[in-house]
């Protein structure tokens, strides 16, 4: 960390000048054969990688309309060009979303279009060479799949979809990413990203019960594998012991305690994160999601609630129903989904975000708060990219912005907004999303955080902000790591339920 310094804030948010080649390099560590093979990918770069890569691309073009349309539709208008936090932070032109897509589009044109086959120079088509492959690996691991670019594109082109496809192609020819694939292996083998086995998890939770008892004098439970509980809580495993995540978990437990909700965690599905999305593998996405289905069926729960995590909530909200049947509205004949959907209680949204859960209780006056407990804070809210642009909360579009803010305002007195060009649907990624939260990408992570740090700094100067709330495990980890590089206290970042936890008044339930 010592050698990594923060880039300078821009005085006004102007578009930075290009610095070609600024982020050239090898990219993050490549997965070794063990990590690759555990997921069914080849251990090494295969001999016929060229043909296999092109064949895989053809397969994905046939399976995903997004990729098919996005490869054709871009007109190089450049509206997306200056919208990516990695471009702003690194100034490398290949981090402009359109240029990132073009890394793949140039190959698509060469092999799949008439113009690219016969007039490659004219349309910027190129062969898939080893250099191109390495360039893919490097720059497709400088995208956090945050979808900010897709907000501004006249055709809704989502670079995240292209990045996912590229990573899937790379993994399928033996060039997977170590960080993501190793973690996915742990989920399959042990049940969570951290590789925390059931006994260790049980220990951790018991320790937590004691700590909370010392703190509050109350018997607040953190139940594990309780059959017949009403609520199954699926949360990122970082919540079990990382700082500041754990304070959020305590917050959820207090909310459940205050309302006498019977709830449980599951050792089989002790992970809300789903890195299958990061590596663009439908197969892995689905396999990881199926663990939650299994746990829900086995424990016989009526509701599934998801803790504070950005991409996990996108996967849960947008994909679970498709992947595993956690949701509503399956056909009568759809036996796979009905098996689970008959068990769930459809008076509630399935799945429910913990913020939806808490806000619902607040609206029904079921929770009491002492707001002054948060008076030491001037709070702002960082919208996490996957929640903001890939999901929803509540009944109306934009609920994902209002509900967390409403909760904060219900439990604290001092709330201010950051620059509106960087919040809600226009929010910037923390710089560590999409499978990039690894030490071997620290330089990128620091630079990618620049746009958020700039506006946070403004809010600190103008309003004295000293707490930035986020509802994402990756945001929390990333910010507590990079904020010190920008001269902020690492404890400035925390969860929304950490604030809930501070202010909640627990009676005798």
């Amino acid at each position, binding site marked *: 960390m010592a050698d990594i310094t923060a880039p300078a804030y821009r005085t006004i948010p102007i578009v930075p000048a290009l610095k070609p080649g600024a982020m050239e390099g090898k990219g993050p560590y490549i997965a070794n054969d063990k990590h690759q093979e555990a997921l069914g990918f080849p251990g090494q770069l295969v001999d016929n990688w060229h043909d296999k890569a092109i064949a895989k691309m053809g397969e994905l073009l046939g399976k995903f309309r*997004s990729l098919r*349309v996005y490869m054709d539709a871009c007109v190089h*208008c450049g509206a997306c060009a200056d919208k990516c936090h990695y471009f702003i932070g690194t100034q490398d032109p290949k981090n402009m979303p359109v240029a990132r897509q073009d890394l793949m589009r140039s190959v698509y044109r060469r092999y799949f279009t008439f113009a690219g086959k016969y007039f490659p120079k004219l349309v910027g088509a190129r062969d898939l060479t080893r250099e191109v492959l390495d360039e893919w690996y490097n720059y497709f691991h400088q995208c956090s799949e945050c979808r900010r670019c897709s907000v501004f594109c006249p055709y809704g082109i989502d670079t995240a979809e292209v990045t996912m496809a590229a990573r899937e192609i790379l993994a399928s020819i033996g060039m997977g990413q170590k960080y993501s694939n190793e973690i996915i292996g742990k989920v399959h083998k042990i049940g969570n990203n951290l590789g925390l086995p059931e006994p260790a998890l049980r220990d951790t939770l018991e320790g937590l019960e004691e700590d909370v008892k010392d703190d509050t004098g109350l018997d607040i439970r953190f139940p594990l594998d309780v059959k017949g509980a009403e609520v199954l809580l699926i949360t990122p495993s970082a919540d079990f012991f990382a700082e500041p995540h754990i304070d959020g978990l305590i917050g959820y437990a207090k909310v459940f305690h205050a309302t006498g909700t019977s709830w449980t965690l599951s050792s089989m599905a002790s992970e809300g994160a789903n890195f299958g999305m990061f590596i663009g593998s*439908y197969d892995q996405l689905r396999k990881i999601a199926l663990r939650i289905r299994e746990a829900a069926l086995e424990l016989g729960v009526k509701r599934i609630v998801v803790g504070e995590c950005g991409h996990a909530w996108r996967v849960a909200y947008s*994909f679970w129903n*498709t992947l595993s049947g956690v949701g509503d509205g399956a056909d009568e004949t759809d036996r796979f989904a009905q098996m689970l959907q008959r068990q769930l209680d459809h008076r509630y949204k399935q799945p429910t975000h913990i913020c939806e859960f808490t806000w619902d209780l607040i609206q029904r006056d079921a929770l009491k708060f002492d707001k002054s407990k948060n008076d030491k804070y001037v709070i702002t809210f960082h919208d996490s990219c996957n929640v903001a642009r890939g999901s929803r909360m509540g*009944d109306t579009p934009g609920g994902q912005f209002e509900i967390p803010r409403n909760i904060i305002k219900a439990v604290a007195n001092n709330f201010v907004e950051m620059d509106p060009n960087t919040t809600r649907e226009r929010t910037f990624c923390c710089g560590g999303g999409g499978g990039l939260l690894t030490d071997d990408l620290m330089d990128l992570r620091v630079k990618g955080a620049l746009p958020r740090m700039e506006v946070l700094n403004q809010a600190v100067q103008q309003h004295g902000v000293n707490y930035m709330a986020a509802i994402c495990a990756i945001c929390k980890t990333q910010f507590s790591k990079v904020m010190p590089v920008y001269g902020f206290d690492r404890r400035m970042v925390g969860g929304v339920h950490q604030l809930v936890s501070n202010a909640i008044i627990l009676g005798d339930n």
Partner: protein
Amino acid sequence: MSILVAILFYFAVLVFAAGLIYRIGLYARTPAPLKIPTTPAPTTRGGVVLRMTREVVLFESLFKGNLWTWAMGWLFHVSLAVVTVRHLRYFLEPVPAWVGFIQPFGQYAGITMVIGLFGLWARRLFVERIRYISTPSDHLWLVVLIVIGLSGLLMSFVVHTDVIGVKNFFVGLLQFRIGAVPSDILLLGHLFLVFALLALFPISKLLHAPGVFFSPTRNQTDNPREHRHLSAWASKLESEN
């Protein structure tokens, strides 16, 4: 010459139609296995229709993205639409009243269209990041459109071509009769470029026009919790276990 122009006309129209139908068929057939609307997104079908209409008519997202590109791009596209409608008068006899009504606007739209194109090209030439992402074909398309526009304007305002002759020729072509095309170099250049544009449309970036309607981030309804969304290939995975 008339026969050559006629052949090129039929060829271009045929390739345009067949190519576009093929491409649209391909887009329509390719499944969208996951719900990926860029949120906040409409929760109802009607809302999606509105969102798409705003996108196609007003270029809403581009407006958020870059004002200058939006202004020039929108000016160009709207002008092009008006100009295209105006040109119906060369194919339809009698000329419908609404085409007649648009005639004066159509002529000036030719001017605004070219202004828009120059604006877009200026961006491509002078803004560093846009220049970086531009391929030769990006420039070429702008040049082609500008030449089409300018040659058209010249015929409208400066060296008038024999519009009656043009009209007779095209009305004839629509009835599969090949008459005589006025041999006017401006006109022929104008026509050749338009035919080239039509024929190349289905294999070029001009596919953004049909593409926008098939973009899952824009045309999907935000209701994944309420309805199970399942594509054919994905549901097969379920019957396997």
